[in-house]
């Protein structure tokens, strides 16, 4: 098995699509939220909406770690990049996200040393290769990515490397789901649960959604068959009147999560009392900061950042789109002032952001008269 193409098998996809049509009650309108930005991207990339009946609606959730970062955090990072001898290292996802004074790529064009890395380990390599420079790694991501940052900091401490720091913008998924469910504008029937976050936290953390909120949640993989199968499982639960946590992605997700990963997170990070999320406001216990025992490598302590709060431009509706209250096309700026070429908000830049996904893959389809295959 190669674990990729098998889960893109056209015959099986058609079969799953048929099963969804069969299970969906024509008298009902279903609203399922896929929490994770990776799922949003996959849904658009594989054209999965074309395979669902009209009455099964997918709502995009806030699980895009780039999209939910308030602009001020980008500005803080760029402030660090402007300090003498600093190399700013970040994932490609961050490069076009606009801060108040421009995006990292724009700052790079103006002469700052800004590098794209694929892994925090690569950022560490940069530090070893450039002993007279200071490498600041702008860490983003949910619980999927935090363990890698944690292992990197453990290694840095063990090796006594001094010219390296991490600006932690890691956030946690459960408070975000809670905020969605607490939102009065939201009416959801079920969740397609984040597959890769769950490889770390397991499936137990979602039990309150099924038990207290009485909504099914199926932890899903990212191939077309995974997502379709998860929708089948949700529809079966609803038909049976059940509300349970199920693990569709069992080939990869252990129910109990990854103990070594959770241990690494616990050793290096602690929960911030609160953190501001774009669109969702301040949420308590929703983000990770570096423990005092690793203070020497905490960029927030190493650099004295102004930490200014930067609010989104008035006309942009990033918050409502993030919460799933508005569809991307409903935002007044969508497609006019805000496009992937000149994005106003992170949702149009991040490849996981619903606005970018919708713009790149979908929105002109609605202008189509007929498309005969």
């Amino acid at each position, binding site marked *: 098995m190669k674990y990729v193409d098998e889960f893109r098998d056209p015959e*099986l996809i058609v*079969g799953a699509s048929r099963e969804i049509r069969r299970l969906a009650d024509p008298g009902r309108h279903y609203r399922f939220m896929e929490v994770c930005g990776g799922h949003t991207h996959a849904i658009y990339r594989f054209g999965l909406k074309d395979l669902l009946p009209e009455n099964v609606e997918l709502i995009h959730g806030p699980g895009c770690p780039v999209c939910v970062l308030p602009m001020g955090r980008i500005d803080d990072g760029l402030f660090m990049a402007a300090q003498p001898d600093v190399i700013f290292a970040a994932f490609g996802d961050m490069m076009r996200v606009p801060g108040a004074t421009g995006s990292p790529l724009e700052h790079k064009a103006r002469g700052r040393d800004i590098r794209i890395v694929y892994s925090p380990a690569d950022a560490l390599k940069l530090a070893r290769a450039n002993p007279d420079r200071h490498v600041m790694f702008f860490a983003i991501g949910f619980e999927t990515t935090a363990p890698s940052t944690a292992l990197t900091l453990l290694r840095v401490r063990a090796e006594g490397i001094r010219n390296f720091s991490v600006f932690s913008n890691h956030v946690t998924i459960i408070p975000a789901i809670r905020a969605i469910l607490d939102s009065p504008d939201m009416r959801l029937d079920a969740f397609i649960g984040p597959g890769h976050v769950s490889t770390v936290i397991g499936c137990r953390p979602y039990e309150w959604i099924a038990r207290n909120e009485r909504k099914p949640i199926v932890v899903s993989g990212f191939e077309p068959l995974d997502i379709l199968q998860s929708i089948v499982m949700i529809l079966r639960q609803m038909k049976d009147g059940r509300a349970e946590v199920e693990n569709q992605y069992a080939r990869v997700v252990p129910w109990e999560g990854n*103990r070594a990963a959770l241990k690494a997170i616990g050793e290096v990070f602690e929960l911030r009392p609160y953190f501001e999320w774009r669109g969702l406001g301040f949420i308590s216990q929703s983000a990770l900061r570096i423990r005092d025992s690793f203070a020497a490598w905490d960029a927030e302590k190493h650099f004295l950042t102004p930490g200014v709060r930067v609010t989104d431009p008035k006309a942009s509706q990033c918050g409502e789109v993030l919460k799933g209250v508005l569809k991307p096309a409903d935002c007044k700026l969508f497609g006019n002032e805000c496009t992937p070429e000149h994005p106003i908000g992170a949702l149009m830049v991040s490849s996981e952001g619903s606005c970018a996904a919708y713009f790149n893959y979908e929105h002109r389809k609605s202008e189509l008269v007929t498309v005969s295959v």
Partner: protein
Amino acid sequence: MCLAIPGQIIEILQERDNLALVDIVGVRRKIDVGLLSEEPAKPGDWVLIHVGFAMSRISEEDAREQMRLLKMMGEHAAAMEEITGYGLDDSVARGGP
């Protein structure tokens, strides 16, 4: 979040530094297997890779079981469609596999 893709471990490079060489559809990269410490990775294992770290082992058994269920689902759906044509769908749907 989270672009993570399956790759197969070719070689354990440095046990002390937790590095392994992994093959991903013909591309090779050194991956940190430190998060798999509870059950150390060995050559031939399939793992899920995210930002240069192995997050989890991929279970071939679970994958095959899933493919089996998917095939059944497809056949079941096709069978049901046929039956729907005969107007028998309601009663069969309630008692299905």
